[in-house]
């Protein structure tokens, strides 16, 4: 069956590459394993903004957040608007915290201001949609309905963020404002994140191995500003950035068995993406790319540090408000005292076919476009380290 499928794929190329090459192709295919490589071309917080999520009108953007701060200090709205016009960065909202009689940066000392209880996404249960996974193994009172699988899922991160203007999108349309800028900047400087899928036959249903690695190389852009299909990336041998999962493909959808995910970035956002109870749901698209959702329990301080580093004007969120909300709504990985250290979260992810090489230059993941290996090479299976 495997050989027959390979022959079907190669039939069109037969006239061009000749019988010897086809024989080589069949033999390598018959070896029983192949690995496809991918470069992750986009990651951002999954969104599913809908009417009614924020009945109080939401938290707005940094301008509305700062208006509220000024009004809390006694200014009228008109006065606040006038003060903010053209002067937002000069007013130094970052150091509005107070600690031991000193003004301090709320991005460093979030508890130096009281919890102003930002508005969070309301509603739960069927009909309240958000991407995610059933991390708890049960339907919890705050579960959403996933718009694709229609299963009940947990995504408390969305409750925290979903009432800020910057997150008023529905994945996969466009990323949240701040994350899109951060990723676009990081693309030209950050080591690429790689994904590989290994299995006996990746053209149909079956068990696979899924690995994530960081690369030594940065992404290469295509002419439209996206990520170049078919480029090559060498794996960073640092084992910390290697995550391996047992997976399964069914109806061209890739899922994994839960495990731990760890990936370092070199970006203001996504400086570190680590998840426990990691779930994955990626579509294997006809053009060879992948797209879908990765999620799990994420240390809530990790995400807060993403936004705190960028500041309120860039991240467009209330930094201490998000801190309190993340802490309050965290729902996983309790510490010894019973406080949850992680929060259920989901990220939208896209990846394009790429060659994945080990540090000795050997191809360990082939690039497939439209189901065809770009250069006829079928690499062997990559095993979990």
């Amino acid at each position: 069956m495997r050989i027959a499928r390979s022959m079907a794929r190669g039939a069109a190329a037969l006239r061009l590459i000749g019988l010897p090459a086809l024989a080589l192709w069949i033999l390598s295919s018959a070896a029983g394993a192949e690995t496809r490589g991918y470069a992750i071309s986009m990651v951002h917080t999954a969104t599913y903004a809908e009417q009614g999520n924020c009945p109080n009108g939401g938290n707005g953007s940094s301008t509305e957040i700062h208006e509220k701060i000024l009004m809390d200090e006694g200014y009228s709205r008109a006065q606040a608007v006038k003060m903010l016009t053209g002067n937002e960065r000069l007013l130094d909202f970052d150091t509005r915290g107070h600690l031991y009689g000193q003004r301090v940066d709320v991005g460093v000392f979030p508890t130096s201001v009281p919890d102003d209880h930002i508005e969070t996404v309301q509603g739960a249960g069927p009909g309240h949609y958000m991407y995610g996974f059933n991390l708890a193994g049960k339907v919890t009172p705050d579960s959403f309905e996933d718009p694709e699988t229609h299963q009940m899922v947990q995504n408390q991160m969305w409750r925290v963020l979903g009432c800020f203007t910057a997150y008023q999108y529905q994945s996969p349309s466009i990323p949240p404002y701040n994350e899109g800028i951060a990723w676009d900047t990081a693309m030209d400087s950050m080591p690429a994140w790689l994904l590989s899928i290994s299995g006996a036959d990746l053209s149909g249903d079956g068990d696979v191995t899924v690995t994530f690695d960081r690369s030594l190389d940065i992404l290469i852009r295509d002419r439209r500003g996206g990520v170049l299909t078919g480029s090559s990336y060498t794996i960073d041998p640092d084992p910390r950035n290697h995550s391996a999962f047992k997976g399964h493909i069914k109806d061209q959808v890739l899922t994994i068995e839960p495990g731990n995910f760890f990936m370092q970035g070199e970006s203001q956002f996504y400086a570190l993406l680590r998840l426990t109870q990691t779930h994955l749901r990626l579509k294997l698209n006809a053009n060879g790319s992948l797209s879908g959702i990765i999620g799990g329990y994420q240390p809530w301080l990790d995400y807060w540090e993403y936004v705190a580093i960028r500041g309120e004007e860039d991240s467009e969120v209330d930094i201490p408000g998000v801190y309190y909300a993340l802490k309050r709504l965290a729902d996983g990985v309790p510490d010894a005292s019973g406080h949850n250290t992680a929060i259920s979260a989901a990220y939208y992810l896209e990846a394009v076919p790429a060659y994945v090489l080990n540090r000795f230059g050997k191809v360990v993941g082939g690039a497939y476009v439209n189901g065809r290996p770009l250069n006829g090479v079928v690499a062997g299976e990559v095993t979990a380290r």
Partner: protein
Amino acid sequence: MSALPGRRAAATRLIAAVAALGVCAGLAWSSARADTATRAETSLVRLTPEQYERSIHDIFGADIRIPANKVDPGSRNDGLLAIGDRKLTLSAAALERDDVVAQAIAAQVADPRRRATLLGCQPRSEQAADDACARGFVARVGLPLFRRPLSTEEIQAYVTTQHQAAEQLHSFSAGIAAAVAQMLVAPDFLFRVERGAADAAQPGTLQLDGYSRAARLSFFLWNTTPDSELLQAARSGKLMTDAGLQHEVDRLLDSPRLESGLRAFFTDMLAFSGLDEDPGFDTLAIDAGFYPNFTLSAQNEAQEQTLRTIADLLLHKNGDYRDLFTTRDTFLTPALAALYGVPLARSQELGGAVPWVPYHFSDGEPYIGILTEVSFLSLHSHEGRTSPTRRGKALREIFLCQKVPPPPGNVDFSLVQNTSDPRYKTVRQRLTAHRNEPMCAGCHKIMDPIGLSFENFDTAGEFRTTENGAPIDASGELGGKSFDGVQQLAQLIRDDPATTSCLLDRAYSYGTERKPTAQEQTWLVRLQAELTRDGVRWRDLMRRITLNPDFYTIPMSAAPLSAAAAH
């Protein structure tokens, strides 16, 4: 002529422009005078932007920054810009740009930090002219700039320019800069002025003098101005002797600079620049919407890939030219590797130089020879779709030296251009329908059968097996021989005698910048027979051409002095 104090730049430009006109007039006068003495400036050949740049760097130093000086796109005749260069006039825009570039270069040459090594003397004052110091400098740099010694009158003219500028602007450096700028816009620098004398043994033919021989040799083999040894051989008369010529030819062929000459030749032959029907890389536009993998890096590196492939085979491996069509050895960058769909480990640091990596395509991979490199495939395509017609035409004209007539003015292309017509999914089907029009059939019959064999490669050079979901048929026919796919076509091109004869014709024409005479064509036929037997190797070919006495002749009817070019 006058200049207001403080308006240094304007004054310098004015001095240079007026002086240039004076030199133009002088040249025309000296030409007329020389005719009466049986010696003549036989023709003018415009320096290419690359030759200009390399000449400046060789004379004044590689660190001289040269502003972009490509104004005129050039004119391709008989397949070569080099032949068109003999007919080039100097447009007003080009002269204006030459003046700007000359000022920029002159300022750097006269900069006291660089002047110390170039000047050869210490000026008496930084605020005044120094005619004696300037005279030695002008004579020394004038020789490689004009590819001949300057006359006493010419030297004095430039020294006078220096004197006037230095005195009016109270700066010795400004004076030197004015003189240099004036020399850089002189026709003797911007054009190769070839001088010869009537050859009694061959009536109607002019024999180039020693300096013109030196320039023709140097620009042909090195693509730059003659070095001091070659100019010395011209001065001593050695270049006019068989032994002296042979010595210099062998010296030039042994130099690593030979690669520059080879690159310049193939850049011209392969039509990598210019504004022909198929644009060169300067103006190539590929639709990013259809071909996002055709990055700017890939576009910029495609030409270099082919030139590296050629230089590697012909120079570094001393290989046979014909094997360029079947070689599987090339060089890739990360951007090109993605287009070819092959893995390539990167070693590039962020912001570092482009890493070129030797790459060998395996037998199972579809790419073979320079005809399947991105440079050929993308240059001879439309913006958003392939063109078997353009590819077939280019193959015949560039590599086989066959002439394909242009399409008639009233031809209807709508059938070919409509890629969404469900009746014709592949371009083969569309062209077959198009060829049913009698007025189109004749030419398409000689272009399409070979062009269609490239259909497994899209406009960006990426491999494909289908078009609009329909399988691609890459079979074809060349010279009565059928083939199945581009790999078989590559072998046919390699073995076609026209492939060798075309290279010989192009190389000889490039070196002489004219079409070969009947006598030279007879010699080329003999040469082809020998090389076909022994191997078409670049150094051997260059040696045979440059040792052929006819290489240093100009048929008097072929290239009269162009009055337009002189002005």
